[in-house]
Every structure is written in structure tokens, then in C-alpha cells.
């Protein structure tokens, strides 16, 4: 399975009139199959907005987004939810697990939502936990997990629905740099070994260096730098 993403002339403006904020301006880029891309830039440069549009959480003001040739920009709210459910895996900033559920149950939340919460889902959850080194924490309630463990559970959750795209926003915000690096490394490994497309927003250059390619944002505009060769 290989996934390609094409973003063309994408813009997002919040509000209108004098208070309008152009968060993303005419952004265009494409990815190679199986690529892991980091988006860096100062706070307020539009990284999260870009990620949200690609992930079907925000509707662009103009421009096109294609995932494997399928148009994402024109989806309505219901179609966006279905797209997120079926094709996207999100890793949010720390602490977005359901605190009263165990690690395994947090993964199974996804299969409950998709309505496929059977034995297969449980096996899949256990396998993901194993790959992430969390087998002995499977039955621990989220509040008992360390920050790094929680973030690895969140990675497992993002992979539960076997998505095409894995979208990550500041995954290491709540972790120290050593732990953050471990988490990002295992994230990249999980994503790439499955041939999925990874898009990670971060302000931490050290983390970004781990990606195949770095896209830099400034005032809503894109520039590509570093490791360009890796994308072919």
C-alpha cells in the first residue's frame, strides 16, 4: 500500500473583513509514496491549520487536497467525519486519551467508533501495543501511564483504523527531549513500515530532522528544505 498526497494552491482564511486572518496562503506540495514529512515553523505560521485541512477537520477557503487521487477539500461535514474515521489516524498533543480507559481500551475506542469492535480488533490492539513496547501496560488505566507511554498509546490509536494518512501535531510537547525522540522514532518506524503517509507538525528541529523531508512554514507560506533527495 502506498499513499500519495497532493496539496495544490491551498489557502485558509479565518474570519472576514478587517479581522480576517490568512493562516495558510497558496500552499502547494506533493509527497512521494510512503514518505514521512515534517512541517516546521514558528508559532502562528499556519502549521496546525494546514494539518487540519489535510485531515478533514477544516474546510479550505480555496485550493485542492487529494489523497490517492481523491478530493478532500470539497467534503461536507458528514463526509469529513467518515474520511477521518476511515482514512486518517491522528496523534494529538499529549493527554488526549480517555483517562478512565486502559491502554488497550483506548485503542479499541477506534474500533467501537467504526463499529468493528470484535476479536479481530482486540488482537489488532494487542499487536500494536506489542510493537510499541506496551504489552505489559495494556491493562493499565491511562492515568497510570507515563507521558511517553501515553503518547505511544496515542500512536497505536492512530494506527487502529489502518489509515492512509497519519497526522501528528506537536507529539512531543509534553515530553522531555530524550523521551520525545524515542516516541517520534517509533512513530516514524510504525508509519513507514506500513507504507503510510506521515505528516508531523513540530516546532522542534531535532524531531523534524528525523523525517524524510521538512516543509517550512512562514506566515502561511511554504518552503521546502532539507533531505529533498530522499523524496526522490
Amino acid at each position, binding site marked *: 500500500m502506498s499513499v500519495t498526497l497532493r496539496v495544490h494552491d491551498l489557502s485558509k482564511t479565518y474570519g472576514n473583513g478587517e479581522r480576517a486572518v490568512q493562516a495558510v496562503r497558496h500552499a502547494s506540495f506533493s509527497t512521494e509514496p510512503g514518505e514521512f514529512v515534517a512541517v516546521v515553523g514558528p508559532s502562528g505560521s499556519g502549521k*496546525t491549520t494546514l494539518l487540519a485541512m489535510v485531515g478533514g477537520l477544516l474546510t479550505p477557503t480555496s485550493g485542492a487536497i487529494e489523497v490517492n487521487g481523491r478530493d478532500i477539500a470539497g467534503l461536507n461535514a458528514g463526509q469529513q*467525519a467518515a474520511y477521518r*474515521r476511515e482514512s*486518517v489516524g491522528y496523534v*494529538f*498533543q499529549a493527554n488526549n486519551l480517555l483517562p*478512565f*480507559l486502559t491502554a488497550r481500551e483506548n485503542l479499541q475506542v477506534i474500533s467501537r467508533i467504526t463499529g468493528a469492535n470484535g476479536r479481530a480488533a482486540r488482537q489488532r490492539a494487542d499487536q500494536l501495543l506489542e510493537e510499541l513496547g506496551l504489552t505489559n501496560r495494556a491493562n493499565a488505566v491511562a492515568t497510570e501511564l507515563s507521558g511517553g507511554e501515553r503518547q505511544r498509546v496515542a500512536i497505536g490509536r492512530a494506527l487502529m483504523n489502518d489509515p492512509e494518512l497519519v497526522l501528528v501535531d506537536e507529539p512531543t510537547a509534553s515530553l522531555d527531549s530524550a523521551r520525545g525522540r524515542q516516541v517520534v522514532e517509533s512513530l516514524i518506524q510504525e508509519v513507514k513500515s506500513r507504507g503510510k503517509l506521515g505528516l508531523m507538525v513540530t516546532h522542534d528541529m531535532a524531531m523534524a530532522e528525523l523525517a524524510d523531508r521538512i516543509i517550512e512554514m512562514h506566515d502561511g507560506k511554504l518552503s521546502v528544505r532539507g533531505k529533498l533527495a530522499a523524496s526522490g
Partner: protein
Amino acid sequence: MIGLLEIRRRKFQFALIALIVTLISYLVLMINGLGVGLNEQAGSALRNFDADAIAYSDKAGLSVIRSELSQEQVDRIAVESGAEASAPLGYMAANYRKDGGEIESAAFLAFDPGTIAAPKVVEGRMLTEEDGDGLLVDKSFLRYSGLAVGDTVTISVRLVERDFRIVGETNEGAFFFQPSVYLLRSTWQELKYGTVDAATPVASIMLLQGNGLAGTSGPGWEAVSKSTAFANIEGVSGQQSTVQALRAFGYLIGGLVIGVFFYVLTLQKIGQIGMLKAVGASSFFVFRQVMVQVLGISLAGVAVAIPLTWLTNRAIQQAPNPVPIAFTNGTFITTSVLLVLMAMVGAMFSGRQVAKVDPIIALGQQQ
């Protein structure tokens, strides 16, 4: 269900909410029990009449106290109403002396043996035409008075005192919030009116059996169904609307409290809800979790309240002078169902809140 898992993991928090539901359910159940109990006190004896309709003097405004019928009217009602069977019945309030000598009042109902107005005797024997000094008394009368079948009791009315012997016990209940006592109609006439002549009323009301009797009337009389007659007992309608209002408030407050509780819980979980929606859950999926919780908690609350009410009722009935309270399976069922329904309605506030959550918040847009 994620909602049920949450209850299991946060037992203490949800147990507290269930406790509140239990207390409210208990309150509403007790109010309903009081309503039924008061109604029984108001006139279960009337409800137990072996009749389909009751005829009054048309000057009485459907008041048993004020209705008086002459012999001529009694004879005419029997014919004009078209009743299959009928019988005159007299009513009078009078005092009696308890075992200890205190004065208490009772509702005296007068009948002719062998007619449909005769009550059922559960102990002792029925009155015969020779029992001019005999009484049949209700269970509750024996309990309040401390007297027993075979005892003599002094009745006083119109400054006259007269001794009676209790020959039998009935279980017809109360009338006008007093225990019912049955005596012969001829004795009643003497006690109530003193000298008896051709012009003396012979009955207060007539009991009628047959179909389609409610609403019939003739010169000087009118007949209504037993339930209309009951509703027209002095004090009943006021008492019923009071109980209805209390009950309505109970349901309303129950729904509101649960609604507010779950609304607050939902507000606290906006972030979690945003995450669920961001990974593709519909508002309905999230709302279902809330509803399952409300259903579970309110069922648990009601389930605890029912035995609690039952025990309270038992304790009350053991008291020498019990509060009028009574329960039927119907009370328990309708009250429980209505409370659970109100809880679900209260939870609708949370539904709106859930629908309003924008999944974008999961990304922590405002950093």
C-alpha cells in the same frame, strides 16, 4: 459501551449521582404513596360500594353530607333510574368513646341487611333486622379505638348517647377521612333525626347497579358514576390536585437534577468529546454514551429507591396511628418509568452540548 466502562471505572462519582436519583425517586414514591393513602382515607368505603352509580338529591350538589332522600324519592329512583338493583344508604358523622374514654369521630353508614348496600363482614357476623343496637366496624376503627368485636361502645350524636355492641368487623376502609361504621338504617334514622315520622328522610343516597346509570336523573334526583361520586367527596379534588402538583414537581426536579448533573459532566468532557469526534465519531455516537449512562444511573437509583420505599411503608404501617400511605404495584411501575423518562429528557441538554463540540479543538488550535 464506553459510557458503561466509564461508570465502572468511576464508580464513586457515578454512585453519588445514583444516590441523588435514589433520594429523588424515594421522595416521589412517598408522595405518590401519600396520594393513594389520602385517597383511601377520603373514601375507600365509597369506592368499595357494590354499586355502579350513586343517586343523590338534586339539591345536594353531589354531596353525601347534604343529600337527603324521602321514602317516595327512594321508591321512584329505584324505578326511574332503570337500575337492576338499588338500595338506600344513610350517612352521618358521630362521636364515639374509645377504650380509654377519649372521644373520636367516625363515619356512620346505614343500610338494610340483604341489600346491595350491605358491607362484607370479615369477622363476627352480619347485622340482622333485630340488631337495632348492633354495629359493624372497620378494621381501622378497631385499631384506633382499641375495641374488639363483642365490645360495647357508646355513640353520641345530637346530645344523645347510646350504647351499641360491635357484632362484626368489615374491611371497607374509610369515609371522609374517618373509619367507617355500619348500622341499621332504622337506627340511623332515630339517631340522626330524633323523632321519626312520614316526613323524615329515609336515606342520604341510593346505590344503583346496572349499565348506563351515570348521568341519569329524574324529578328531585340525579345519579353519577362511582368515580364521579368519589371525586365529589369534600376535599378530594383539592387534595388530589395538591398531590398531583407535588408529584409533577418531583418528576420535574428529578429530570432537572439529572439533566444538570450530566450537563456538567459533559462540559467537563468537552476535550474528550472533541477527540472522539476528531477521530470520526458522530455526535450520535457520543450522545449514545451519555444516554446509556443516564439510563444506567437512573435505573440503579430507582432500583434502590423501591425497596427503600417498601421498607418505609412497612415501618409506617406498624405505627399505632399510621400516616395514610398506600402503595400499589402500579404506583411503583408508573413512578419508576416516569422518573427514568424524565432523566432521559433531562439528558437532552447534554445532547445539544455534544452536538456543538467542534472536533477541531482536539488539535489544540489555540496554543
